[in-house]
């Protein structure tokens, strides 16, 4: 048995253990970190946000189309406000492009006023039905046949990777133990004063309170606590990401109009300057099957050819498949079991990114109600995240940064314009990546049209042997501000 904190060799149990380091789990950890508590986050993966959180449609939703009256509706609305503010503070890339739900047939056109009414029932009154003329004025490259649209000005695109990383960074800097590569096996539920014993692939972790944010596996963890309230069905969503030269084609998030015959696919810009087409929606049995399929890609191309034929002329940069945690219920499965000192945060669908901070706030309330002595809330200094979005100057565009540290002028990944300085910062940061994929999500390196043809070997070299930090004290922070760093680390020393 490993001699780890919280293990048998360590008598002190954590106050709270969060299982799952996705966007929801890390948001909860961040919220808990505002209190004087011992907290750990466990995840089976090698990185935070490595499950559903990493491969989604990356939209900050207003919640206009949620089912009114649901917890999801409330938390998405509240989460939108919170995350919008948090993103501005920490430098998470967000672009408020607005969405158009484009109607391609009479049934869809007839659905628009109902969607507008639904948005208003959800407390969002800024939607507007627009005619075909306005649709084509707003989106001249849209394929022929659009009859009208619902304009939802608040819908935004966001960087899902930076969001999870920001939550995790803030939590870790406040003292939360982040335990990756740690798979939960069994749980021996505590009772009375005895804490829960969580048996993991890296030893036993003891916890007075447990929060289940295990995403696709949240139903299985819930069963370890003796509950059978829901079953997660992995719903695969395949996505095609088009090259940056496609970005000028699209001005809004182009959403499908949901009808009885199911949801269509969306076309949306990404904060990295690409255009995304997807997702498919296919229920699977295997919670790890994130492969793409010939059928799925053909389906997307067929849909994309109708929505925006010019898009398909551009090169494809990447193909992803993500799994969403669908359940048999129409709402989040967020349940507190005070007698067990256990909160389940299951069935969080694609809206979880938007709702994450509100879910965390809500879970904090549930834990306190269940008897967690959290004490007063203290302020934390939110981290400044590296800017990997296109809406603000990137390091290679900043003469001040390059002058202070020439490594910000050394472009390594040419397609994505990622500099050696940014890769070095990621490798030496508070939450260094353990895999090349982790480095991709922190910097965008290797994510471009060439997929490593030019820089694959060099990026691998920088990952295997991270360069030393130069004497410079400037950091490339996300607000486009050159600020004096808090360290004076020089060559060779690890950066705190």
């Amino acid at each position, binding site marked *: 048995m490993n001699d780890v904190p919280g293990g048998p060799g360590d008598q002190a149990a954590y106050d709270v253990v969060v299982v799952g380091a996705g966007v929801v789990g890390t948001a909860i950890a961040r919220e808990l970190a505002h209190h004087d508590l011992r907290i750990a986050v466990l995840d089976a993966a090698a990185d935070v946000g490595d499950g559903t959180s990493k491969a989604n449609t990356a939209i900050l939703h207003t919640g206009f189309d949620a089912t009114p009256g649901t917890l999801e509706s409330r938390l998405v609305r509240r989460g939108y406000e919170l995350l919008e503010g948090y993103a501005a503070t920490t430098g998470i890339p967000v672009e408020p492009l607005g969405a158009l739900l484009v109607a391609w047939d009479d049934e869809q056109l007839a659905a628009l006023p109902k969607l507008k009414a639904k948005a208003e029932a959800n407390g969002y009154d800024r939607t507007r039905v627009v005619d075909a003329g306005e649709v084509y004025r707003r989106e001249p490259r849209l394929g022929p046949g659009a009859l009208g649209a619902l304009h939802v000005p608040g819908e935004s695109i966001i960087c899902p990777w930076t969001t999870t990383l920001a939550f995790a960074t803030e939590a870790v800097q406040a003292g939360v133990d982040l335990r990756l590569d740690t798979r939960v096996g069994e749980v021996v539920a505590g009772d009375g004063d005895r804490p829960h014993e969580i048996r993991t692939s890296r030893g036993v972790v003891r916890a007075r309170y447990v929060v289940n944010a295990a995403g696709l596996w949240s139903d299985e963890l819930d069963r370890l606590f003796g509950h059978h309230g829901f079953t997660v069905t992995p719903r695969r969503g395949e996505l*095609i990401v088009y090259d*940056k*030269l496609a970005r000028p084609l699209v001005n809004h998030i182009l959403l499908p109009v949901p009808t009885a015959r199911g949801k269509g696919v969306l076309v949306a810009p990404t904060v990295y300057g690409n255009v995304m087409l997807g997702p498919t929606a296919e229920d699977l049995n295997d919670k*790890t099957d*994130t*492969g*793409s*399929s*010939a059928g*799925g*890609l053909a389906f997307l191309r067929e849909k994309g050819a109708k929505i925006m034929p010019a898009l398909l002329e551009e*090169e*494809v*940069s*990447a*193909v*992803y498949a993500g799994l969403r945690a669908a359940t048999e219920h129409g709402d989040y499965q967020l349940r507190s079991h005070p007698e067990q000192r256990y909160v389940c945060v299951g069935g969080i669908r694609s809206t979880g990114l938007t709702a994450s901070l509100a879910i965390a706030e809500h879970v904090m309330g549930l834990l306190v109600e269940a008897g967690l002595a959290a004490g007063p809330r203290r302020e934390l200094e939110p981290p400044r995240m590296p800017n990997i979005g296109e809406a*603000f*100057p990137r390091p*290679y*565009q*900043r*003469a*001040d*940064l*390059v*002058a202070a540290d*020439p*490594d910000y*002028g*050394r*472009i390594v990944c*040419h397609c994505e*314009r990622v500099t050696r300085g940014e890769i070095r910062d990621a490798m030496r940061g508070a939450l260094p990546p353990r895999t*090349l994929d982790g480095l991709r999500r922190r910097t965008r390196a290797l994510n471009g*049209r*060439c*997929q*490593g*043809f*030019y820089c*694959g*070997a*060099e990026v*691998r*070299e920088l990952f*295997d042997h991270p360069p030393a930090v130069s004497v410079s004290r400037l950091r490339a922070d996300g*607000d*486009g*501000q*050159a*600020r*004096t760093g808090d360290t004076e680390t020089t060559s060779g020393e690890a950066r705190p």
Partner: protein
Amino acid sequence: MTTSATSPASTARRERSVEVLIVGAGPAGLAAAAELARAGAGPVEVIDREEHAGGIPRHSHHTGYGIRDLHRLMTGPAYARHYEGLATASGATVRTGVTATGWAGPLTLQTTSPSGLESITARAVVLATGARERPRSARLVPGTRPAGVYTTGMLQQTVYLRGQGVGRRAVIVGAEHVSYSAVMTLDHAGVKVAAMVTDLPRQQSYAAFRLGAGVRYRFPLLTGTTVTRLIGRGRLQGVEVRRADGRTEVIEADTIVFTGDWVPDYELARRGGLAVDPGTRGPSVDTALRTSVPGVFAAGNLLHPVETADAVALDGRHVAGSVIAHLSGAPEAAGVPVDVREPLRWVAPGRVGPAGPPPPRDRFILWTARFVPRPTVEIVQDGRTLLRQVTRRTLIPNRPIYIPAGWRTAVDPERGPVTITVR
């Protein structure tokens, strides 16, 4: 102390002027620079975003370079050094680690390098940004996203420039010249080739390459075979293929190399608003290698994905003459487009006029999507046949096909596009 990103201090660029700015220090760019500097064209500067000049030959460690341009046989790295030395010795400035990030005017490029941000204005700009292989994602190959997936370019850099490990058993996708280059690179890295697969009915390289490689490295060539899925989490474990007879099988492999399927690196050309050739996807040029923007030229594999390095270097010499003519105020003559019909995919150059110079090497390059035995090539303008040529030589995909350029003097600039067909 903080500085706002929008203040002049953070975005200030050094502004400079040169006579000729060449983007890309591969064989085309370096050969053009050498020729221009030697001709006394004024300050000639070549910029390249990589740390070392030379382009693709830099990491192609096999021999075969220099035949048509230098009349000798060299390895890729030696060839790259030769051209860098030639450009420098002729008086051109070669700057590496400098990325052209965009345009600030028709003849002004913005750059980023460790020494800062610049705006460089030139009287003539030559784009020689080359071509790259389409990666797995752009080929829409389904399956997982494991490690062990390469293009030849990435593989060569991994093996020859970085000395990193690759794997044990590889599938090579493609059976053209570059695919055999991948075979040699894998052998150098101690990786066994499990199979070479091509969706075409035959391999497309020289018969001697296939014979030699087949005997020496002993791997099957699977023709009419498509990669249908990658299998394996974390690391590649297998490659599912569909054979010509419809059977599906899984080839055990921890490495897959996607070779060929070249696409020009056209980002800068497109960001500059240059007219695009619908066939090559590179900038549209005439026989003088002039783009649609006066003073902006293009050369090399940006125009014809993909030719061998020696042919590319000859492009560079050719464009130098056109640049000198431009600098001395020669009039621009508009050409007409040259279109191709299936199975042809493109022709380069894709514009032609009777007044222009002959194209590089006095020939046009064609590219075909499928094998065409005993082809009849016909070039027609407005119902007039400009050339009709019957040959015994089969047109082979993924290999340049040359046609003579003499017909171009008969093109009438008033009678619309020229069309090339093969039967």
